[in-house]
């Protein structure tokens, strides 16, 4: 396959690094825009919630010194950015000896696994359904069944998660409602453990797939309709190619390209949904971590988790964007 044009590559990388920089800077600036400083604000909220906090002034001073909040802002900023570059996200204040990096490192793989699997399923199922909806040889029954299966489309994954958790976790307890694997199991590559992980991950993944694949089916159907009007489709028909071959080599192959770009655009929304689904299912990924951090008022952990999730999303978008030229031979020459 042709290479990626330099122009395209540079632009995608620029967007990626700018995204990281903007996110990091926002996360640095936002707390400083609030009245007071983050530590005082946090302690104030702690005392608001938990009543009087003993020696709060000393605590505040101690933290300020510890986090260098008495330095000029630009020094703080540079130190903060330097820390980020080294993967140092600071300490999780509410669980002191643990660093944010440690906690995130434990949670991130589960979230990536969950999102990755759900994405693979809804992208494949959705596009397949959309292609079948538009294909002239699809049996009538299938063309009726597919739209019926799409009734949950557009409902937020959070709500679908609630419904699924209630029906299949509580009323008919087929699936567990917490954690990504059973207690007492050690993460290892055994069939038992993998089966257990799938068992735990099934409902959260379905909560995303159920409400999402319909969008892809609709998008794919639209693309197929457009492609059916292309000149090369008439020639494909005239050539007497086998119908199924025309479907996947001429129609799906050409329709999938815009679907890939669409996927890159929706990664952000997808991550939003996963965070909340994890909370519902108490899944030990980034979403639950951030939820815990919010409850513990652990500002450092909220910042760190958010930043890493934003970075992961941007990386996913970058990967999709860079794989796009590999699928569409036209992009490698023309650039964009």
């Amino acid at each position, binding site marked *: 396959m042709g290479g990626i044009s330099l122009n395209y590559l540079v632009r995608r990388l620029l967007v990626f690094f700018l*995204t990281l920089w903007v*996110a990091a800077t926002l996360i640095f600036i936002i707390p400083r825009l609030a009245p007071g400083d983050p530590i005082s604000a946090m302690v104030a909220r702690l005392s608001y919630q938990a009543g009087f906090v003993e020696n709060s002034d000393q605590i505040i001073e101690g933290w300020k010194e510890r986090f260098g909040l008495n330095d000029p802002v630009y020094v703080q900023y540079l130190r903060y950015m330097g820390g980020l570059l080294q993967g140092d996200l600071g300490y999780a204040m509410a669980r002191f000896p643990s660093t944010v990096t440690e906690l995130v490192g434990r949670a991130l793989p589960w979230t990536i696994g969950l999102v990755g699997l759900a994405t693979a399923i809804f992208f494949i199922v959705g596009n397949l359904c959309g292609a079948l909806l538009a294909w002239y040889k699809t049996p009538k029954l299938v063309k009726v069944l597919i739209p019926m299966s799409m009734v949950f489309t557009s409902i937020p994954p*959070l709500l679908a998660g*609630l419904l699924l958790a209630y029906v299949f976790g509580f009323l008919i307890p087929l699936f567990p409602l917490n954690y990504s694997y059973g207690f007492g199991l050690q993460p290892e590559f055994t069939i038992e453990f993998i089966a257990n992980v799938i068992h735990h991950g099934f409902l959260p993944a379905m909560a995303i797939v159920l409400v999402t694949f319909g969008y892809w089916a609709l998008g794919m159907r*639209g693309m197929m309709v457009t492609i059916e009007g292309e000149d090369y489709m008439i020639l494909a028909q005239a050539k007497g190619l086998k119908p199924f071959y025309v479907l996947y080599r001429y129609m799906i192959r050409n329709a999938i390209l815009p679907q890939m770009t669409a996927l890159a*655009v929706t990664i952000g929304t997808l991550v*939003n*949904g996963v965070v909340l689904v994890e909370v519902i299912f108490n899944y030990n990924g980034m979403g639950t971590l951030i939820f815990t951090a919010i409850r513990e008022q652990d500002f450092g952990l909220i910042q760190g988790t958010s930043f890493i999730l*934003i970075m992961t999303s941007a990386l996913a978008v970058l990967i999709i964007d860079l794989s796009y030229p590999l699928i569409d031979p036209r992009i490698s020459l023309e650039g964009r």
Partner: protein
Amino acid sequence: MAEDRKPKDAPVAGGTKKAGILNRFDNPWLNWKFLTGAGILGVLFFLIFLGYQLWDTNLALSARAPLNLPPVGFTNWRGQEGVPEHPLGTENSGRDMLAMLIVGTPRTIIVGVIAATVGMLVGILLGFMAGFLGGLFDDVIRLAVDITITIPSLLVLIVIQSVLGRVDLVAMALLISLFTWATPTRYIRAQVLSMRESGYVQMARLSGVPVRDIMFKEIMPNLLPYLAASYIGNMAGAIVTAIGLEVLGFGPQRIPSLGVAIFFSVEAAALVRNMWWWWGFPTVILAIVFIALLLINLGLDEIANPRLRKAN
């Protein structure tokens, strides 16, 4: 020799579906998806209006009713039965579910309306400017759009709200609109660029029509169905984000919205206490709202794109 062929016998290749084609020239706004979606929302608003007239909305505040009552005809885990004074049951701080729905539904929708409106206005402004001015301005806008779309909005909003604490609904809507401008901007920019090159806009420019007139008389009318679809999509997206923030505990809590009701229920483990009415009713109402918005959106798509109509 020549045998007569009815249209339906025509060979597959020349496939003829007369019936599907005939509505192509009908009024496009008479689209069943669009009308159904709009109808559902209309009925919902009417019911809310009725509710405000007929029901005591103060019951949505806490400690106005007995705790944890089930809906009429059901029994809760303590063996209490539902009472007609609270037909949809109550939750654990003594709020009446029916009043919560009546008060919460419009509050949830209004967040979407505000965020989508702000996003659309900014999008129209930036999109037209980027499309018409081009150059550095266009580059900056494009980068900003790409970055904003890449970042999961919920995460930044969590960071902001964890500093600000709980805010009221309008403030929350405005915060959400930090992210709702990007999609309309990108869309309008692309459309303006392609229309700028199209024949009729070129003609208008050549004949000396002012740019403002070109924008609002030549380009806008063609964009209208797309903009409407984008607006509805943004509205749904903003409501999803708002619910997300509320479920994480950032919603205004005295007068609840639907998302806050769900937050309370999740906090109180209503799921495993089988208090399904607590999270179930808000979820069902929200599901109805989202399905209605999706139908409107799909209908607008078909109104804007005749090819999709043909395929039905």
